[in-house]
C-alpha cells in the first residue's frame, strides 16, 4: 500500500513473476471463501517545515481513520517529493496538500477530465474517469454566459458526488512586513507577480523578501513542477500574452487580440484569436521576440519532445490551456493566429501561458536527466533552467543557495508607459532589485524582519507562529485572498480508493470548521467544493459546496467511532471481530 514498497515491487517484477501467479490463485481461493483482509492506507503529505497546515490535517485524518478501524500510516516528505509522487509517479494512496486552482472554470477540465488520467502532471492527478463528467467539462468550454455557468455548476455537482478530491479549506495567504518600511503594496495577492510589479518603494531601492523553502538549487523552469513561491518568481521572469485579475484578462506581452467565432465541427463554438505582439519587445538576452516564438511555445506545451518521441510528452502544467489550442500560426513577425476549440468567452484563457524563447527551448526536447526511477521525461520538464532567459519585467541577476536576486529589465514595455492596464499596474518606483531569501524555518521570518534583514516575508504561519509574530511590535501582517485550496486527494487507480463510498466517508472524517479554526487560526474558509475559488466573467457562479453532503461524523473535531463505523458499513464495508475495516483482495 505504501509508495516505496510498491516501487520496489516494480523493480523486482521479474523475480516476482512466479510468486504473482501463485498469489493470484491464493486471492481467488480467498475470494471464494469470502475471506477479507484489514485495510490499510498511507497518507502522503508535506513535512511541517514546508507546510504548517497539511501535515496537521493529515495527522488528524490518520487518527480519525484509526478510530474508524482503518490502519493509517502517515508519510511526511518534502514538498517537491510529494508532488513528484502524486503528479508524476502516481504512487500514493491518499495525500493531503494544497492545490493551486486557477480561477477560470475551465481548470476543472484540466483537473478532472479522463483524457488526462494517464498523463503525468497537474492534469487529473487522481485518475478520475467519468463519462458524464467528461461531457459536462467538454461542453462548458463551448458555451458562454448563463449556459456555461449552469454547466459548470452541474460539473461541480458531479465532482462533489465522485469526490476524487475532498476539499477542506481555502486558506488566506499571509504577507508580513516591517511597520516602519514605506512599501506600498497593492491588492493583487501575495502569490501574484503583479504585486511586485505594482509595488511602490521610496527611491526604487532593493527589496528583500523571505520565502519558505529549504536552501538549495532554485528551480526556475516555468514548465516544471515547482514549489508555489517559485511560481511567482518565474512569473516575474516570463511574460504571458495576457494576465488575469479576478474574472478579467488584460493584454500583457500581447498589445491586444481580436476574437472571431469560427463555426467549428458538430456545432461546437470555436474561435480564432488574432494576436498582435508589442512593438520592439525583446528577450533578456537582447534578441527580439517574434511571433514564431509564440507559435513555438504552444507546440512545445502540446509535446515537449517536439515530435521526437512516441508517445508525445506534454507538459505537466498548463495542460488545460494548451489542449484548447487547435492550431497556431505566425502570420508575420508580430502577428499570431490561434485557432481555439472554445467559445469566444473561454478562448482567451489560452493566452495565459508563459511565452518561451524558441532559440533556447528547441533543443530541450531530448530526454531529461533521470531522477531516481522516475519516468523518463524531456529536458524541457526536468531542467532547473538556472539561467532563465525570459521577457518579464524582472530578469535573473545572480543566485546562491540562500537567495535569488532579480533586477528590473530596462527594455521591458513597462519602462516606458505602455498605457492601458499594463500602464496602470506598473509602478514607476517599483524596486530596482528584488531579492528572494529562502528561509528554512518560518520563525526565521520573524527574526529577520525584526533585525531588518528582510523587508517582507510571504511564508504561511501556524497559529502559534502567527501569535509569536504578532507579539512583535515591529512587524505587521496582511491577509490576502488565495487561489487554490487544501484538500484530500485520492488515488483512484488503487483499491479501496476506487470506491466513491469509501472516499465520501473519509471526507466526512474531517471537521472543516474545526480545522479552519484550530489549524489555520481562522485564516481559512471551510469548503466542500473545488469550485470555491472559481471566478467567471458573468459573476454568477457561486458554488460554495453543499455541507449536507459531507457532514462531519463527530463533534468539535473529534470523530465518533460508532458513527464513523456505521458510515463505512452503510457504503458496504464490513468489520473484523477485532474492529478492523475489511476489504476483499
Amino acid at each position, binding site marked *: 500500500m*505504501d509508495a*516505496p514498497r510498491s*516501487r*520496489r515491487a516494480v523493480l523486482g517484477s521479474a523475480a516476482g513473476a512466479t510468486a504473482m501467479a501463485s498469489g493470484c490463485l491464493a486471492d481467488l481461493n480467498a475470494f471464494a471463501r469470502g475471506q477479507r483482509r484489514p485495510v490499510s492506507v498511507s497518507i502522503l503529505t508535506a*513535512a*511541517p*517545515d514546508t507546510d504548517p497546515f497539511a*501535515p*496537521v490535517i493529515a*495527522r488528524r485524518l490518520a487518527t480519525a481513520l484509526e478510530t474508524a478501524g482503518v490502519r493509517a*500510516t*502517515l*508519510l*511526511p*516528505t*518534502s514538498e517537491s*517529493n510529494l508532488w513528484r509522487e502524486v503528479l508524476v509517479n502516481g504512487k500514493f494512496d491518499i495525500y493531503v496538500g494544497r492545490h493551486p486552482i486557477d480561477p477560470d472554470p475551465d481548470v476543472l477540465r484540466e483537473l478532472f477530465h479522463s483524457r488526462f488520467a494517464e498523463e503525468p502532471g497537474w492534469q487529473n492527478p487522481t485518475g478520475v474517469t467519468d463519462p458524464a463528467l467528461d461531457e459536462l467539462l467538454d461542453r462548458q468550454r463551448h458555451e458562454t454566459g448563463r449556459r456555461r455557468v449552469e454547466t459548470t455548476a452541474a460539473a461541480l455537482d458531479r465532482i462533489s458526488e465522485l469526490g476524487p478530491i475532498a476539499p477542506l479549506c481555502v486558506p488566506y495567504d499571509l504577507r508580513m512586513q516591517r511597520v516602519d518600511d514605506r512599501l506600498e503594496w497593492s491588492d493583487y495577492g501575495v502569490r501574484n507577480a503583479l504585486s511586485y510589479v505594482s509595488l511602490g518603494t521610496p527611491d526604487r531601492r532593493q527589496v*528583500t523578501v523571505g520565502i519558505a523553502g*529549504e*536552501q538549495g538549487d532554485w528551480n526556475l523552469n516555468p514548465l516544471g513542477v515547482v514549489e508555489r513561491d517559485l511560481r511567482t518568481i518565474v512569473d516575474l521572469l516570463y511574460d504571458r500574452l495576457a494576465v488575469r485579475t479576478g474574472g478579467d484578462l488584460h493584454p500583457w506581452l500581447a498589445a491586444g487580440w481580436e476574437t472571431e467565432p469560427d463555426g467549428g465541427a458538430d456545432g461546437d463554438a470555436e474561435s480564432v484569436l488574432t494576436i498582435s505582439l508589442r512593438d520592439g519587445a525583446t528577450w533578456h538576452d537582447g534578441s527580439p521576440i517574434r511571433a514564431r516564438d509564440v507559435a513555438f511555445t504552444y507546440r512545445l506545451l502540446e509535446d515537449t519532445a517536439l515530435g521526437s518521441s512516441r508517445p508525445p510528452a506534454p507538459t505537466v502544467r498548463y495542460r488545460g490551456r494548451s489542449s484548447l489550442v487547435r492550431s497556431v500560426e505566425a502570420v508575420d513577425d508580430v502577428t499570431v493566429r490561434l485557432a481555439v476549440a472554445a467559445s469566444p468567452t473561454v478562448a482567451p484563457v489560452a493566452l495565459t501561458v508563459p511565452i518561451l524563447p524558441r532559440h533556447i527551448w528547441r533543443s530541450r526536447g531530448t530526454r531529461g536527466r533521470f*531522477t*531516481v*526511477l522516475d519516468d523518463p521525461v524531456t529536458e524541457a520538464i526536468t531542467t532547473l533552467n538556472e539561467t532563465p532567459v525570459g521577457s518579464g519585467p524582472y530578469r535573473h541577476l545572480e543566485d*546562491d543557495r*540562500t*537567495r535569488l536576486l532579480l533586477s528590473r529589465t530596462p527594455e521591458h514595455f513597462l519602462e516606458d508607459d505602455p498605457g492601458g492596464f499594463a500602464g496602470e499596474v506598473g509602478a514607476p518606483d517599483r524596486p530596482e532589485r528584488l*531579492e528572494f*531569501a529562502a528561509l*528554512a*524555518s518560518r*520563525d*526565521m521570518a*520573524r*527574526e*529577520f524582519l525584526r533585525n531588518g*534583514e528582510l523587508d517582507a516575508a510571504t511564508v504561511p504561519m501556524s497559529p*502559534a*507562529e502567527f501569535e*509569536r509574530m504578532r507579539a512583535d511590535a515591529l512587524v505587521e501582517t496582511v491577509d490576502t485572498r488565495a487561489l487554490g485550496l487544501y484538500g484530500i486527494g485520492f488515488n483512484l487507480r488503487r483499491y479501496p480508493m476506487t470506491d466513491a463510498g469509501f472516499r465520501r466517508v473519509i471526507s466526512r472524517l474531517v471537521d472543516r470548521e474545526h480545522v479552519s479554526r484550530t489549524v489555520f487560526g481562522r485564516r481559512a474558509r471551510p469548503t466542500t467544493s473545488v469550485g470555491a475559488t472559481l471566478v467567471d466573467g458573468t459573476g454568477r457562479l457561486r458554488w460554495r459546496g453543499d455541507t449536507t453532503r459531507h457532514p462531519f461524523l463527530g463533534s468539535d473535531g473529534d470523530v465518533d467511532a460508532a458513527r464513523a463505523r456505521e458510515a463505512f458499513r452503510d457504503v458496504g464495508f464490513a468489520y473484523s471481530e477485532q474492529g478492523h475495516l475489511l476489504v476483499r483482495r
Partner: protein
Amino acid sequence: MSFQTRLLVALLLEVFAVVGVATALTLPMVVGASALRERSRQVRQRLHDSLGAIALVLGVLVLNRFVRPIVPELSWAFGIPITDAIFRVEGSFVAWVQGFARPWLTSYLAFAYVHLYVFALLVPFVLYLFAEDARPLRVTGIAYATNYGIGVICYVVFIAYGPRNYLVGEVDSLLYTTYPSIRLLTQQANVNTNAFPSLHTSLSVTVALLALWTRRQFPRFPIVIVPITLSVVVATMYLGLHWAMDVLAGFALAGVSVAIGVRWTARE
C-alpha cells in the same frame, strides 16, 4: 554575500571561539600543567603515528560531504519509512520530555546541542595528542569513521522524520522557535529525513566511552565529558529533534564504533 551567508559565518566564528576557549581551559585541567609541558614535544610523533586514522576520518567526512546531498533522493526511492513505526512504539514520550521545558533549560540545552557538542567532538583529537601512546587517537579516528559510515547507511535505508516534524502540534520545534538563526548552522549538516539514528547521540556517547576507556591516563576526562554527553543526549529529545528510539540506536552505534576501534588497534 547574502545576509544569510553573512549570519552563518558569524555563527560559525562564535561557535569556534567558544570551543577554542573551552578546550584551552580543559586541557591543563585534564592533562595537568606539568604533563602538558613535558609531553608537548611528543605531539608531532603522536600525529605521525595516527596519520592513518586521522586520514580515515577526513576521508569519511569528505565522502560524506558528497554523498549527503543525494541521500534524501536515494532514500526516498529505496529506503523504508519508519517514522510511523517509531511513533507506534514510543508514542508521545518526547512530548512528555518537553513538558519540563523552562526558558533557562531551553537556553542551556540549545547551547549543549550546538556548542558543547562541537567541543566534545573536537576535544579528544587535542587531548589524545598528549596521551602515553598513539592508540587513543587511532581508536578515536576509527570510531568516528564508523559512526559516520554506519550512520549514512542508516540514513539511506531508513526514512525517519524527527518528532517535531511528525507530532505536529504536540511536539514543539524548540530549538528553531527559540533560536531561529541556529537553523542556518544546523541545516549545513542535518537533513529532516535523517533522524534515525541520532548522530549527535552516537558521537557524543562515543566520546564519553573513549573518556571512560582512557580514564587511567586521564581520570578527569570522564568528569568533564559525561555531563556534556548526557546534556546533548537529553537535548536531542527535549528540543524535539529526535525520538527516544533514535537515541537508543545512537547508544548502540556508539558502542559498536568504540568496540571496533578498540579491537582493530589491539591487533597491531
